[in-house]
């Protein structure tokens, strides 16, 4: 287990140390360093007992959230070996290196590379690294945690592990131990049906998975991208421009494959691996499927320019990966008869560029929504998401505009002189100006969506279209019916007409 060592001046370096956690009302040891283990302490022991036995024990509070963050950073680091990385909380990471190990000189080479990176990265912290290879993730996890002596074969090593390596429920584990089954080998030699009947199917299933008799896969932390291309550098590169050039090269590789498959991507993610283990993700989106490397580089440079905190290359990047999370059909570009590509594309490229630079929520299109509540009747969707324009219902011919051009959100409160209980407004004050109503139409009554509310009621709005003496047209409403819904209904201006 890895722990950050906090800098406490009075702590002696050679003193045994432990992390404590409050479990069921008592401070108990959560993790120990090897010296503390050698002194006979064990996780779960109350802190008072531990102190009584070893007075010089150095104690820190455990921080599981920080441990998880640390673990995730290590998982990010491991991402360079294989995209199939899974967390094995609270202190393990499982990699599926099927077909990857030869790239690093076999399993031994991969481990050596990983260890050298981890040692570089873990400077200033205390921690131990253990690893194991097995046919199934469960087997590898069990070996990494519990193997103490080398064995002739993987199967023999697994069979020698204690029952605890199965990581069953504590009750099942105790029951197995009471039955005299101490190692996995003991359990494996028994017929499985009685074991399943007595200790639950979980015990036999886990056993089969640990021993590699049943197939088992890891669930990667991130969904695997449909395509990815990567480049490693013998010497880390430090300039952002160089990184963008490499992204362009990878984009060209991607374009070849995409063209072959007649596909395009609407999302591209570039992951920059810093040599000290930090990772920076950049992603761009486009409204239409895309595979043109030039456009891709343009989008990425927009992205880099728009970053609030610039990319810090540190000692340089030693690997860059470009991933296309999902593919979409994209036919070869059609040319127009009079020359030039189909015009929709330049507009889409513009929208992509603006969305990348300014944020996808800032550039939007309208989409209708089936509700009569005015402020909810229009959805604003990011324009990159909605490349196909929505269809709107045409207004009735001959009618003047019944809905305003500007809609206030929230509606603005006004003081109104109107007949009680349900007369039209005569005069109102909005933004410290009096407006005399010369023409009005209404009310248009819009009830609340009572069928969606648990209490089955809501406040009705009476909308009036009014025009003041200077010709301004407003959309104002009375919020609530006199006495039946509200004692003193307020008035609001909700919009402005042309």
């Amino acid at each position, binding site marked *: 287990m890895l722990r950050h060592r906090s800098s406490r001046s009075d702590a002696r370096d050679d003193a045994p140390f432990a992390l404590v956690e409050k479990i069921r009302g008592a401070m108990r040891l959560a993790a120990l360093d090897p010296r503390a283990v050698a002194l006979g302490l064990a996780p779960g022991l109350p802190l008072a007992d531990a102190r009584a036995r070893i007075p010089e024990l150095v104690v820190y509070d455990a921080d599981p959230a920080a441990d998880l963050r640390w673990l995730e950073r290590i998982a990010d680091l491991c991402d360079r070996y294989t995209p199939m990385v899974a967390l094995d909380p609270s202190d393990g990471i499982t990699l599926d290196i099927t077909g990857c190990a030869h790239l690093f000189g076999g399993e031994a080479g991969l481990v050596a590379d990983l260890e050298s990176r981890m040692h570089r990265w873990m400077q200033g912290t205390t921690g131990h690294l253990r690893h194991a290879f097995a046919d199934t993730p469960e087997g590898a996890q069990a070996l990494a945690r519990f193997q103490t002596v080398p064995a002739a074969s993987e199967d023999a090593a697994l069979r020698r592990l204690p029952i605890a390596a199965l990581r069953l429920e504590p009750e099942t584990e105790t029951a197995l131990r009471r039955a005299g089954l101490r190692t996995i080998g003991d359990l494996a030699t028994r017929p499985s049906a009685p074991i399943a009947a007595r200790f639950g199917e979980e015990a036999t299933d886990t056993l089969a998975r640990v021993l590699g008799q049943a197939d088992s896969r890891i669930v990667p932390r991130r969904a695997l991208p449909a395509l990815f291309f990567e480049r490693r550098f013998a010497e880390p590169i430090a300039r952002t421009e160089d990184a963008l050039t490499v992204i362009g090269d990878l984009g060209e590789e991607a374009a070849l494959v995409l063209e072959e498959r007649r596909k395009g991507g609407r999302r591209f993610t570039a992951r920059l691996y810093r040599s000290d283990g930090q990772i920076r993700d950049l992603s761009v989106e486009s409204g239409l499927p895309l595979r043109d490397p030039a456009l891709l580089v343009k989008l990425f440079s927009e992205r880099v320019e728009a970053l609030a905190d610039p990319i810090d290359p540190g000692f340089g990047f030693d690997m860059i990966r470009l991933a296309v999370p999902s593919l979409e059909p994209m036919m070869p570009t059609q040319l127009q008869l009079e020359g030039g590509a189909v*015009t*929709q594309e*330049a*507009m889409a*490229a*513009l*929208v992509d*560029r*603006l969305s990348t630079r*300014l944020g996808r929520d*800032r*550039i*939007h*299109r*309208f989409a*209708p929504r089936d509700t009569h509540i*005015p402020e909810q*009747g*229009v959805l*604003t969707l990011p*324009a990159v998401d909605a490349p196909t*324009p*929505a*269809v*709107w*219902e*045409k*207004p009735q*011919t*001959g009618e*003047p*505009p*019944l*809905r*305003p*051009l*500007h*809609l*206030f*959100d929230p509606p603005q409160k006004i003081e109104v002189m109107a007949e009680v209980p349900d007369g039209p407004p005569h005069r109102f004050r909005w*933004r410290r*100006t009096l407006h005399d109503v*010369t*023409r*009005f*139409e209404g009310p248009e009554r819009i009830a609340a969506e009572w069928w969606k509310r648990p209490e089955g009621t809501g406040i009705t709005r009476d909308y009036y*279209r*009014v*025009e003041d*003496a*200077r*010709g*301004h*047209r407003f959309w104002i409403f009375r919020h609530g019916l006199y006495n039946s819904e509200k004692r003193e209904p307020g008035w609001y201006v909700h*919009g*402005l*007409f*042309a």
Partner: protein
Amino acid sequence: MADSSPSLSVLRRRISHIEQQRPISEGVQISTGHEAIDTAIGGGITRGCLHELFALDPDDAGSVTGFAAMLALRLGGGILWLRQETVQKVNGRLHAAGLLEIGLDPARVIVAVLPDPVSVLRAAADVVRCPDVGVAIVELWQRPAALDLTASRRLALAAEASGVTVLLLRVDAEPTPSAAQTRWAVRAAASAPLEANAPGYPTLKIELLRQRGRPAGGCWQVEWDRESAVFRPADRNADTPIRTAPPGAMVSLPRGGSDAAPSLVPLRRTG
């Protein structure tokens, strides 16, 4: 004559070469549907130019937005509407149902809501350079320091090169020097009442404050006809109490369309 003609033709070729650098988007004029306005501005709103629309009073924001939407509808093409976030919060968001009531299909509109005037202008520069955009509407309130003569000149040049029409909406602002082709002031006007004294069709009072290369002046009261998408003169009985200036009939008299011909065919061989 004989020795002057080769140098003359060389000169002409050079002139036509220079003129080819800038696409001939000038002269593509879109009629407003209102005869008097069209004559005053030489046939209609010029495409690929910068036009400024002013609402001197913030209460007229609805009217100037409507006028911009109506012009954009007549100009055609995709519309990119650039707005400011603070304005959106205080003065209301653009309502798609309202655009539809003007006759403008909201599916044609893409709205960009940006944090400050500088980013609005920067995005506008990108938008105006994209030839597939029909109309770019740049909405700026009050007087942002970033909008100076240089900025408007830059927009105007980009518009000329790409053929995008830029409508610069200035709400709650006073006109300043700019590179605009035309400059308008828009105010709300009383509408002709419908049955039971209901507010009628959108009625605007628009004034031509300035235009490049032509005499300015003229003030019209117009009503928007959604079904045929034209401006038409507002009913007289409706606007009599409001009107302060006579309609711009006097402007239409000296222009009979005769001056439109030479500007369209500038290089006619006479010898």
